């Protein structure tokens, strides 16, 4: 009895925090999303129903955000995973300078996304005073100059994708390098003695052996990219709707607070829609993986 009380005492702080800021909000967000015409000032609502969802789904800003987010996911997840795989394989095949490269590659992980985003902005931006470094390079190779920050949609999307890949690479390279290091070298020796060509060693042995890790990175990559927000803020500023570069998470926050803010009900509906999407995609991923991933 005394033991019981003591244990709960140890758990009390954690449970208080979790209850107040995780469990209660989780229930509450569903309630919000069904309360129609919720007034933040008077904290009253007029009815219960699906109006909030319908509003969000018909909001052009939301649809734009969904389009942006989906494009971002579809482009950056394969690109970053593939690039990380190539770099990790390269890293594992060398000895000299390996630590140096690993250290450099990890740097973006420990930098402030907002701050370094500004550097990307000035690199890509075109102003009356200067075309910016990237445009200079484009010009050098005979290309047209484009304002990547306030110009056409594809240019803005391109910068966002480049910056996102830059930001997510450290984690992926780190995880893949350690997965590659954990493959027992005896398999490579066996393959060599059997005269296996390099590319076949990679596709038939290395890749299947690290497939659980690759798959883990793809799933977390999907989830992470669907929640993209601060990268976009860093590049295009807080008013993402005006820039046409909002993401779903950005839409949620804008609904909650900021220029168009004050609508927790719409925000809740949008957030729940987002997680319905993420959940569906993750489930599909899981089903696909069962077929293609080898778990020892």
């Amino acid at each position, binding site marked *: 009895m005394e033991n019981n009380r003591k244990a709960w005492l*140890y758990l009390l702080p954690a449970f208080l925090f979790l209850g107040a*800021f*995780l469990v209660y*909000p989780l229930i509450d967000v569903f309630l919000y999303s069904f309360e129609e015409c919720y007034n933040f000032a008077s904290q009253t609502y007029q009815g219960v129903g699906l109006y909030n969802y319908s509003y969000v789904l018909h909001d052009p800003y939301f649809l734009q955000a969904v389009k942006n987010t989906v494009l971002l996911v579809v482009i950056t997840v394969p690109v970053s995973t593939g690039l990380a795989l190539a770099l990790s394989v390269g890293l594992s095949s060398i000895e000299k300078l390996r630590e140096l490269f690993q250290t450099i590659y990890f740097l973006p992980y420990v930098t402030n996304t907002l701050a370094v985003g500004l550097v990307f902005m000035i690199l890509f931006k075109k102003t009356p005073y200067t075309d910016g470094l990237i445009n200079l390079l484009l010009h050098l190779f005979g290309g047209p100059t484009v304002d990547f920050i306030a110009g056409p949609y594809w240019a803005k999307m391109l910068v966002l994708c480049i910056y996102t890949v830059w930001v997510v690479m450290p984690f992926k390279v*780190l995880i893949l390098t350690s997965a590659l290091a954990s493959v027992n070298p005896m398999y490579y020796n066996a393959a060599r003695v059997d005269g296996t060509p390099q590319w076949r060693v990679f596709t038939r042995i290395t890749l299947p052996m690290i497939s659980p890790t690759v798959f883990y990175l793809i799933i977390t*990559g999907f989830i992470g990219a669907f929640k993209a927000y*601060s990268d976009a803020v860093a590049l295009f500023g807080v008013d993402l709707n005006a820039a046409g570069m909002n993401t779903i998470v950005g839409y*949620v926050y804008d609904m909650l607070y900021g220029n168009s803010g004050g609508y927790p009900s719409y925000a809740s509906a949008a957030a729940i829609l987002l997680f319905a999407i993420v959940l569906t995609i993750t489930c599909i991923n899981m089903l696909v993986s069962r077929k293609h991933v080898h778990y020892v």
Partner: protein
Amino acid sequence: MDYEKLEKRAAARKRVTRAVTYALLAVWALVVLFPFYWMVLTSVKSYGAYNSEYIPQLFTLSPTLQNYRDAFTAVPLARYFANTVVFTLLTTGLMLVVTVLAAFAFARLEFRGKDLVFTLFLSLMMIPNELVVITNFVTITNAGLRNTFVGLILPSVTSVFYIYLLRESFAQVPNELYYAAKVDGTSDLRYLWRVLLPICRPTLVTITILKVIECWNSYVWPRLITDDQNYFLVSNGIQEIRENGFGRENIPAMMAAVVVISVPLIVLFLLFRKKIMAGVARGGTKG
């Protein structure tokens, strides 16, 4: 078959592969490093010089520290900085206390319903932050805690994942140590402090580092909960500088501010490189 030729061809192919590998690795290293170089470079160019460069110069012969002076005087960068340090230290400290106590209860103490509670607890890991932030915003606003450290810190304190990580680490310490301590009349708290924590130091270091990185870079919650510059953290500060910074578009000064907020974590990283990378490999998620 001509073995010598075969051998030579294999060696040549190996050299080419090696060269291509190094080239690819070097290119990415350049891509990673270049923004850092550019931000430092721009931060030491004078305002006039920067704005008169229609074609950006890749180096400067007359570096100046004026931008750093501007960054600290024209905008309250020092205040953002101090706020972030306070926020990071308090949040991490509180998180450690709460996490250690809970992990100890789950790992070491016996109580009724422990398995059920732990399972429910683990299922909380699946709740995404973006869902709960809405209600938290309303809660904190209604409690009148906007623009206070309390409002900033409280919702960021607990992490189910860190409790789980630490519990696993605690659970690996042999039971005999606990019984031996009990026989010697050691209290639970003393055992926790003198035996368990020293043994599990690597995990503690890991979660501390991860939390510090998370705090230093946190943007969304502070943005929602503060609109008074006196409570801005560096991320919000930098965004504020960007939106209506120095009264005019002063990019060199902006870059100086960026350098200042980037340096602490980079220094921390270079000092504890191995530990941080191992920690992130175990428990990191960003990406």
